[in-house]
């Protein structure tokens, strides 16, 4: 019995050094040699300053920009407090919120049915993507706000649409931050 405890303690220490420290630290070193951009969080720099991560949604509210999906992370798009709404389908709050957003959007768009991803919060609250449908849905608003033709906007969306990986995996999508960055580039 005594030796079981002794072995347990020694085994725990040895394996902690190996698995808890050596492994992640070595991997960090290798990662920075092989994939430094990704290892540091796929950060996007503008004028030497970090404006966000290509992988994370950030808040866009102005008409000039494409809007990401609503976020339940913290007070919205909080990258230190990721998460979903966790509201049940049978929760009145959820249905009221979604229906309210739909009604608002539909009203601004001549009653056009709203792509569902545009009014539902994502699992992370940091979903960087919207569906192409949701992007095209916003094209008219952005075009109007930027005094550009809707066609130009649509072309930009098409260029930013990521197809399924290998034509098979995942879903077609548009990265909102990258789209908005290029949008800014277009109007400069």
């Amino acid at each position, binding site marked *: 019995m005594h*030796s079981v*405890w002794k072995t*347990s303690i*020694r*085994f*725990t220490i040895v*394996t*902690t050094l190996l*698995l*808890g*420290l050596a492994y992640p630290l070595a991997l*960090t070193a290798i*990662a*920075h040699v*092989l*994939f430094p951009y*990704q*290892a*540091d969080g796929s*950060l996007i720099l503008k004028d030497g300053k970090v*404006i*966000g991560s290509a992988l*994370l949604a*950030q808040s*866009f*509210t102005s008409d000039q920009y494409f809007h990401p999906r609503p976020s339940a*992370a913290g007070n919205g*798009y909080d990258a*230190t*407090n*990721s998460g*979903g*709404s*966790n*509201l*049940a*389908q*049978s*929760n*009145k709050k*959820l*249905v009221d919120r979604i*229906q309210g957003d739909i009604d608002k959007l*539909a009203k601004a768009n001549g*009653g056009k049915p709203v*792509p569902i*991803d545009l009014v*539902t*919060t*994502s*699992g992370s609250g940091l*979903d960087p*993507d919207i569906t192409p*449908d*949701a992007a095209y849905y916003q094209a008219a608003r952005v075009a109007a706000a930027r005094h550009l033709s809707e066609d130009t906007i649509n072309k930009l969306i098409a260029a930013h649409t990521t197809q*399924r990986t290998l034509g*098979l995996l*995942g*879903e077609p999508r548009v990265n909102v931050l990258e789209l908005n*960055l290029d949008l800014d580039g277009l109007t400069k």
Partner: protein
Amino acid sequence: MTINGWLQFAVFSIVLLALVKPLGLYLARVLEGGRTWLDPVLRPFERLIYKLSGVKADQEMNWREYAFALLGFSAVSLLLTYALERLQGAIQWLNPQHLAGVEQALAWNTAASFTTNTNWQSYTPETTMSYLTQMAGLAYHNFTSAAVGIAVAVALIRGVKRTESGTIGNFWVDATRSILYVLLPACVIFALLLIWQGVPQNLHPYTQAATLEAQTQTIAQGPVASQEAIKMLGTNGGGFFNANSAHPFENPTPLTNLLEMLAIFVIPGALTVTLGRLTGSPGHGWAVLAAMFVLFAVGFTTIYWSESQPHPLIHGAVQANTATAPGGNMEGKEVRFGITDSSLFATITTDASCGAVNAMHDSFTPLGGMVVMTNIMLGEVVFGGVGAGLYGVLIFVVVSVFIAGLMVGRTPEYLGKKIEAYDVKMAMLYVLIFPLIILALTAAFVLSPNIGLSALNNAGPHGLSEILYAFTSAVGNNGSAFAGLSANTWWYNVALGFAMLAGRFLMIVPVLALAGNLAQKKSIPPSPGTFPVNTPLFTVLLISVILIMGALTFFPALSLGPILEHLLLHAGQLF
């Protein structure tokens, strides 16, 4: 449901089935102490670990010694993690955000959670755990708890295989070899793939970003990939971030999603091949795998169908699937995964006791949510946790063989071993503990408005589901949640902590006792009178027993939770 969706399911299944055989045979070699191609590199490390830990590698253990070693190690490593959590504020090393020590009940809950391979998370990792705690406390347990699972599984296989033997192996050797020859090398490769796809791996403080609309966004990062890899491979599921695998930093692309799903199932699947190999009955391994696969496919189909349905009370939105949008129930789901990959991931993570999520189960449709919960309620035997799934399903095999085996007119026997009173007792103990703790604790919390119900995020039948899911997940060592439940309270933390420990160790002990008892029996050579355990009929029988045992136990509770919620929702009632 789309053709693309079914194709993705098919691709996942084919790749999985292609991987299990080579890995299973490799595992068999590793666990039986045979030579592997990694020996030249790893053998010296293995010897060094034994030397430093004082392990006598050639000493076989009886089941009691095996259990004591396992429990002793788990207790010590649990305490170390608890200490790390409590002291992280004082240590300050690898703690760039200067996070303070974790409060007692939460630290207890988390230490229990990771030691038991549950990885239930009552906390928001980004703002609670230092990098050191995540690495040396949490990710560390992801390795060791998986290794413990494999060790118990192989001990049980040895029990079946050995005849008139007093011993079932050496715990330290089984754990060390599982880590060194399987988990660690696989994680290095997997983690690098994840980093390549965009998963961060750094030790920097969180980044301050000035967004395009001139707001500040604090971007939490850290050594994510190293933890993400073992989180999946070890069916642990404890996210580096609160949103778990829904978070783009944990699971940035559909490709990482596929890899993560494969990583969850591959070892549990491979262990069925190991079972067939080591017992000399490959057909039996495949029959067990087939049962798992059928239950998995049925679960996926139901969830996929249910999540593809439009919300009956929402109007004016495109909820149908189009060429460029998945439609369906997108609340709590990521666009890059859509309905297909979210449903598939949810099925896999709850079948295996992983508990990682790439979509929020709490926001699933009532029936979709019921199936993810039912997957856990079946006892985490549909692939199941690393090791735990195999020994769990073998318990059901023993029960199946016992019930139906009598019908062939012989004392039931499993692969030559007679199943007698003691074996049935251990198997029933295992089967009993699971619903006992889930139902008793759920009932207690449901009855208490202040302690239990005040934590609810949703009312009505779904509220019952949230509490039921929490204890099911804890005892099943799954770790996923109907996460709306604010479980970070003293009562929940303490109760769930005990539930997780009971669901792990109170169930492992009977398994080891069973292994020990089987090992010392004589083996009866097979004959036409032997109960066949390698036929499609056996697969059907095993599926029926798993379903009936699970369903009969939890049907009443489910009927007042998700079933009622579904019926009321479609009758137009909200809560």
